[in-house]
């Protein structure tokens, strides 16, 4: 059995783990380097804004980032250490505009125990040695040699002397020449360590890398507070050492007694040295402090701590100069702030300038197609602590509002070009019921024109355009007017309908127009040398509902008028020569066509017909015979749709304006539908000119807006701040509500109570409708929407655990049965106590499956209460669970995955299959009846297939059929897709999304064996051509790395790597296809490969 997965990140990691600043890009320019998971981003800072210059992935999770200067290079070098103990030194080549790997190597030790809190790396100020502390009891130095990289850089093993016994929780900082008594050329190392009695001490050494020796340092060895966790080397000239603890900060200096100040208990998480006397500190609650060294006579006399303000809980601080501080966070949005010298209104010194969106940690998410349109939006529980929020994420084309005119009663908006041959639009025609206004673009502003040539401003405008003779035609409800293009031009001709009948509907192109005065009449006019010439008229059998004339020249001899009718639901193509019917099609149903459009996608002709209920038909049109074929129907909204074309990136796009605006375009001869980030757009027209690049003008209920439109679709993220952590989210369709479980984080170290509550929110406005606060020490663990009567009434089921401080085991919990009342309030229908923590709850066929600690129980609703049907115990703690029919698949804390089945007849649970591996699980996802994908704590994914057992034993074994290192901690899998899943695209139906701690929103697709083979080869070919930053091995990075086991990766494809193909230049692409530089020639052409990869890249 095989299962191949294509894994790609729709949202790359957003949680900032480290940041450093310096002149990495060029000698005189401040830049900021930020690491997020396994990605590094380099920003240029111009004094106001951060501008992304280069970003790249490295094949490893970044464990440390240091920027330092050496004497032989004007720019700084970047030292990167990964969690796999690989390191590299990077520099930036300004002429090639790319990152250069200077050297790389690895520091991994077999059997050695890594620090639980992560590695510590420091580089001495003059860039001579790197000091790494990765494993317990070992410090290793890397000598940064004189100019020549590579061979000269030998890791050398050092060993901290263990005064006391073992050292843990060490922090290291290197400094240079802290006293004149010492040779200035020797770096000093300060070590914070803990002895076997859990006391902490600081000691220092002078390190001589050349002789591989160390000597006692000038700082006296000192006992420090047990909570000390951070050492900061005070900058020259004072050369002291700052020891930051949980309750005190100590300043150590040679020859002088230490200075200690006390503070409220907290944990400092980030620090940044501003200058010789000022150091910024940030704590775990997002409080920013300034530590000031008070100097007298060249000696630090005292230190002082001042709170500056509240920020996102920081993981890193980087001071960019001029009072601007970057604050990287893994728990909330990263921020760029101005530090002021004076307090502001809120009493702090911090003004936030900009924010960098962070989705992490995504603890749970719901994938909901609220509008039932085939496109889901994702609502994530993001952020930790006070930075908790919900994020609404949807994929689509962005329209960014550039200008808005607030006018009521707008019926339509049209645009005119300054000349027929021009490719910009300078006039906006806004049509009302009984008047028309014309706005003209003059430089950067729009001005209303009181009078424009022969333009009739006192009637509504049905259509207007530039004609082939460089005139303008305007069709009002009264007449067709042809006039000169100049402002004071003359009316050349005007023609009213017969008997001055009111024109109800009209369409025009540059050569002719067609209009109807109702009752099925259709009149045709031609523009000939400034005259309007009747060229035909007919009376059709039915009233015309919508009409359109081709806007571009056809291969067919004549212009074509397409008409949609009332009552018959028929659409016809009429020849503009004699109004004869060329083609006709019945749409069926009883919804009237409201908008019709003939368009060209990639040189293929299509007819689009939009109905009044948001349905859209598309037909392929034969260019010569104009016969229709290939009818397809999709639903793009619920309201009448108006179709209009605009061009973007040289290709024709159709904008379908409705309650859910959609951009229709094509790629690889496939029609694609992209959501637009705005709602409520009714008419659009292209409006492009130098002030409004790539813009469209459109009407909304509040007036006319001009917006710039994105070339490609991407994720749009909206934030709903909560101020507390959202842990779980669940959607209930029948009540159109979301329910979330929130937990307030303790705000001081002594307070261990957590306030937990259940909230319901409206699915559109995300307004909190009701809140149910849980008892003290009670924490919400799981939530599900469930029905006990086949769907007639829905309940929210919430599992809670009572967490007694000091007792690790939960002995008591509750299952709450809640219902949303018609007034949209939460009503508690029933509670049931249980003897443990209900980690997971899932509905199953009018019953509930509840995992209490390691026991799976089935509950049913009887006599207005929950009663237990049966239970089964085979696990330690269930961390995730999925229900499929009557099968229950369980991810255990430490025992991998097992599958149970509930037997309806005997009302018992039986074990179906187990995995004998001891994976520590985080979450799982069902692929089908036999295949499960699991995620474990070592950032790996694996696929299991159930293989029938041949022995007498009735429990099957799972076989591992795929293993892969994702490099991200997956908290949740959910089935579904971020892209619109229309009836004609079936490839996305089997996709799965996942959310990670670093804020990655990932997508997983099934692959066929052929695709897998092709992509495996493409992966390796791309690596051969492009190489890797830091010379890290992609294959090793993707190998499954368990606690004690490394297994080659198989069954998964790195979609991010595959899609990097699209960013290569053409010759590189060709090289990938040819398999140059040691790859293998692919069995397909460049065009084919490009098309395949592009297809996949569109799936997220």
């Amino acid at each position, binding site marked *: 059995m095989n299962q191949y997965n294509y894994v790609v990140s729709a949202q790359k990691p957003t949680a900032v783990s480290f940041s450093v600043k310096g002149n990495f890009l060029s000698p005189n320019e401040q830049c900021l380097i930020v690491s997020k998971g396994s990605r590094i981003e380099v920003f240029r800072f111009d004094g106001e804004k951060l501008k992304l210059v280069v970003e790249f992935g490295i094949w490893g999770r970044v464990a440390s980032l240091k920027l330092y200067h050496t004497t032989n290079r004007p720019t700084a070098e970047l030292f990167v250490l990964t969690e796999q103990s690989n390191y590299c030194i990077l520099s930036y080549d300004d002429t090639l505009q790319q990152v250069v790997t200077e050297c790389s190597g690895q520091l991994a*030790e*077999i*059997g*050695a*125990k*890594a620090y*639980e809190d*992560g590695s510590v790396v420091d580089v001495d100020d003059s860039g001579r040695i790197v000091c790494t502390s990765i*494993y*317990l*009891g070992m410090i290793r130095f890397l000598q940064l040699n004189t100019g020549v990289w590579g061979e000269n850089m030998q890791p050398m093993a050092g*060993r901290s002397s*263990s005064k006391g*016994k*073992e050292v843990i929780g060490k922090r290291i900082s290197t400094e240079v020449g802290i006293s004149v008594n010492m040779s200035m050329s020797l770096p000093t190392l300060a070590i914070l360590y803990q002895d*076997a009695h859990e006391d902490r001490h600081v000691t220092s050494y002078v390190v001589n890398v050349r002789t591989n020796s160390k000597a006692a340092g000038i700082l006296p060895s000192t006992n420090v507070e047990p909570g000390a966790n951070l050492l900061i080397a005070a900058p020259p000239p004072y050369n002291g050492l700052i020891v930051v603890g949980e309750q005190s900060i100590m300043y150590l200096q040679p020859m002088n007694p230490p200075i200690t100040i006390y503070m409220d208990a907290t944990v400092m998480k980030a620090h940044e040295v501003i200058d010789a006397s000022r150091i910024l500190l940030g704590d775990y609650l997002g409080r920013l402090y300034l530590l000031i060294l008070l100097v007298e006579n060249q000696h630090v006399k005292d230190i002082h701590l001042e709170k500056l303000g509240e920020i996102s809980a920081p993981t890193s601080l980087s001071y960019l100069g001029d009072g601007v501080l970057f604050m990287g966070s*893994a*728990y909330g949005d990263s921020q760029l702030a101005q530090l002021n010298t004076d307090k502001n209104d809120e009493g702090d010194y911090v003004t936030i300038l900009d924010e960098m969106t962070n989705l992490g*940690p995504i*603890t749970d998410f719901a994938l909901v197609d609220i509008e039932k349109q085939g496109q889901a939006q994702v609502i994530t529980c993001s952020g*930790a602590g006070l930075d908790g929020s919900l994020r609404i994420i949807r994929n689509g084309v962005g329209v960014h509002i550039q200008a808005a005119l607030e006018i009521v009663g707008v019926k339509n908006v049209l645009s005119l070009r300054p000349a027929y041959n021009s490719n910009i639009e300078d006039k906006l025609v806004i049509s009302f019921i009984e008047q028309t206004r014309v706005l003209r673009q003059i430089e950067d502003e729009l001005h209303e024109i009181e009078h424009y040539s022969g333009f009739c401003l006192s009637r509504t405008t049905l259509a207007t355009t530039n004609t082939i003779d460089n005139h303008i035609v305007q069709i009002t409800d009264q007449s067709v007017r042809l006039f000169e293009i100049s402002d004071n031009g003359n009316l050349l001709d005007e023609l009213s309908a017969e008997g001055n009948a009111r024109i109800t509907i009209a369409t025009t192109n540059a050569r002719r127009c067609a209009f109807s005065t109702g009752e099925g009449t259709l009149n045709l006019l031609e523009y000939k040398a400034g005259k309007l010439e009747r060229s035909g008229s007919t009376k059709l059998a039915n009233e015309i509902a919508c009409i359109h004339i081709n806007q571009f020249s056809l291969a067919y001899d004549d212009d074509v008028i397409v008409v949609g009718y009332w009552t018959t639901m028929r659409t016809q193509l009429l020849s503009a020569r004699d109004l004869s019917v060329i083609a006709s099609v019945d749409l069926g149903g009883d919804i009237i066509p409201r908008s019709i459009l003939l368009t060209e996608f990639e040189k293929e002709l299509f007819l689009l017909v939009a109905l009044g209920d948001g349905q859209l038909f598309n037909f392929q049109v034969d260019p010569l015979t104009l016969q229709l074929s290939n009818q397809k129907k999709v639903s793009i909204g619920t309201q009448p749709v108006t179709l209009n074309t605009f061009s973007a990136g040289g290709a024709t796009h159709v904008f379908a304006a409705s309650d859910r605006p959609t951009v229709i375009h094509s790629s690889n001869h496939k029609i694609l539908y992209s959501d637009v980030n705005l709602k409520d757009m009714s008419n659009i027209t292209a409006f492009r000119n130098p002030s409004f690049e790539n813009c469209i003008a459109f009407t909304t209920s509040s007036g006319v807006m001009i917006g710039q439109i994105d070339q490609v679709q991407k994720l749009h993220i909206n934030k709903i701040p909560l101020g507390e*952590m959202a*842990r779980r989210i669940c959607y209930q369709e029948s009540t159109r509500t979301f329910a979330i479980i929130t*937990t307030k984080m303790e705000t001081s170290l002594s307070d261990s109570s957590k306030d937990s509550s259940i909230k319901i929110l409206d699915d559109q406005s995300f307004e909190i409708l009701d809140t149910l606060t849980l008892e003290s020490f009670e*924490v919400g663990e799981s939530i599900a929407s469930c029905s006990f009567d086949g769907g007639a009434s829905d309940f929210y089921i919430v599992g809670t655990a009572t*967490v007694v401080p000091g007792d*690790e*085991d*939960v002995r008591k919990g509750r299952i709450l049965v809640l219902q949303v009342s018609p007034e949209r309030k939460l009503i508690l229908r029933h509670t049931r106590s249980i*003897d*443990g*923590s209900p*980690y997971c709850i899932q509905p199953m066929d009018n019953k509930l499956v509840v995992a209490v*600690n*390691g*026991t799976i129980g089935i509950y049913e609703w009887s006599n207005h209460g929950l*009663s*237990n*049907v*049966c239970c*089964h*115990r*085979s696990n*330690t*703690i269930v*961390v995730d669970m999925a229900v499929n029919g009557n099968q229950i698949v369980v991810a255990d*804390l430490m025992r991998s995955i097992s599958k149970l089945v509930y037997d309806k007849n005997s*009302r*018992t649970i039986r*074990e179906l299959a187990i995995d*004998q591996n*001891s994976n520590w699980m*985080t979450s799982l996802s069902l692929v089908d009846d036999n295949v499960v994908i699991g995620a474990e*704590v*070592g950032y790996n994914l694996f696929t299991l297939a159930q293989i029938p057992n041949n022995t007498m*034993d009735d429990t099957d074994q799972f076989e591992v059929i795929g293993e892969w290192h994702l490099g991200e*901690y997956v908290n949740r899998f959910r089935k579904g897709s971020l892209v619109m899943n229309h009836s004609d695209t079936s490839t996305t139906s089997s996709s799965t999304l996942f959310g990670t*701690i670093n804020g990655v929103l990932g997508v997983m697709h099934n692959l066929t064996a052929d695709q897998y083979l092709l992509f495996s080869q493409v992966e390796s070919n791309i690596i051969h051509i492009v190489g890797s930053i830091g010379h890290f091995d992609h294959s090793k990075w993707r190998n499954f790395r368990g*606690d*004690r086991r490394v297994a080659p990766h198989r069954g998964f494809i790195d979609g991010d790597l595959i899609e990097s193909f699209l960013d290569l230049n053409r010759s590189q692409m060709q090289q990938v296809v040819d398999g140059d530089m040691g790859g293998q020639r692919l069995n397909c052409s460049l065009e084919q490969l490009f098309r395949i990869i592009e297809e996949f890249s569109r799936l997220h």
Partner: protein
Amino acid sequence: MNSALLAREHGIERPQSLRRAEMTKRMYELELSQFKEVARGHHAPINWIEIDRVEKKYLLSAGADSQIHIYDIEEPVHTKLWKIPSIARVEKKNRQKFGVSSVAWYPFDTGMFISSSFDNTVNVWDTNTMTPACTFDLEEKVFSQAISPIAHHSLVAGASADPRVRLCDLRSGAFTHSLTGHNGSVMAVQWSTRYEHMLVTGGTDCTIRVWDIRKAAACIMSLDQYNTEDADPLSSTNQAHNRPINGLAFSSDGLYLISLGMDEKIRLWDAYTGQNTLVNYGPHLRNRSRTTIKPLIVDNGIWPPLIFIPSDDHQVLAFDMLDGRLVKRLRGSYGRVTSVDKRPGREELYSASKDQEILVWEAPRKDSELIDRRPEAELDAWSSDEDEQDEGY
């Protein structure tokens, strides 16, 4: 657990922290398994057990009855009490003549294992046929042997009544060189888990010698329990214990070595400097028998690390390695415990003793009371008795 899971899913604590905390807790809670026992296979004291590091499920046991058994300790599902059966043993004609003193899996696959015997031989066995593939005659009774878990060489070091430490090369089937320095029998031998050429031996001369097998003067250090300053590392006065040394074990990172002496002391050595760390493990150990015993450092994913020491008074003693605190006494044997080993990846310990039994120790299985509770549904009137009998409890 709830708070730990909350911190884990938010990335506040690293995922490894919860794993380490939970594994440590389970390791500290070891108790005699109520669900597993090892079928009796030996008719004489068991001298040594070892679990393979490759498939992590095959336990070798060596007895004074010259017998070697292999047990598959992977538990099938659906067992209430599981008696672990022996899946292979040595036929009488193939056995070593006298008792087997120690046994070791070939570190890289389970197709081969090595045994030492009081009949002066070190045997290399083919697991599939359970026949000796190769025999080295050490001319003196062999107390134990060791093969490096990390090395590229395939040298088996034999500790015997001969003061020379013999190196048997599995590739050639011949001895390479001998390491001289001990004055008396060599009881215990271990390869470093960090440096592939580093070997440590302990003998009846009360010394622990550290060897670099590449060097002509191979002995680089003789450990000194008193940490005498500026002393010659090879000083003939250096003693590691006051009585013969009969047990050695390295930590998995190779930074620590523990030694057991018949002076009933446990010493923890800094394997990097050779210094005695002076951790005091108290007066708990009983160790008076002149046979090699196999202690164990459990430090993989466990913090603080534990050492498990077989004791003559029918127990396994568990100490906090770093501060010497006695954490637990594993009582259950009816004889002197000779050897302990842990199943990799599981909190599951095996101990062998002179009473011919191998005992299984594991973390208590919690929530067992939940299984035994009768589901309420069964109390319903319409739930028939047959249903109850089908329950898999």
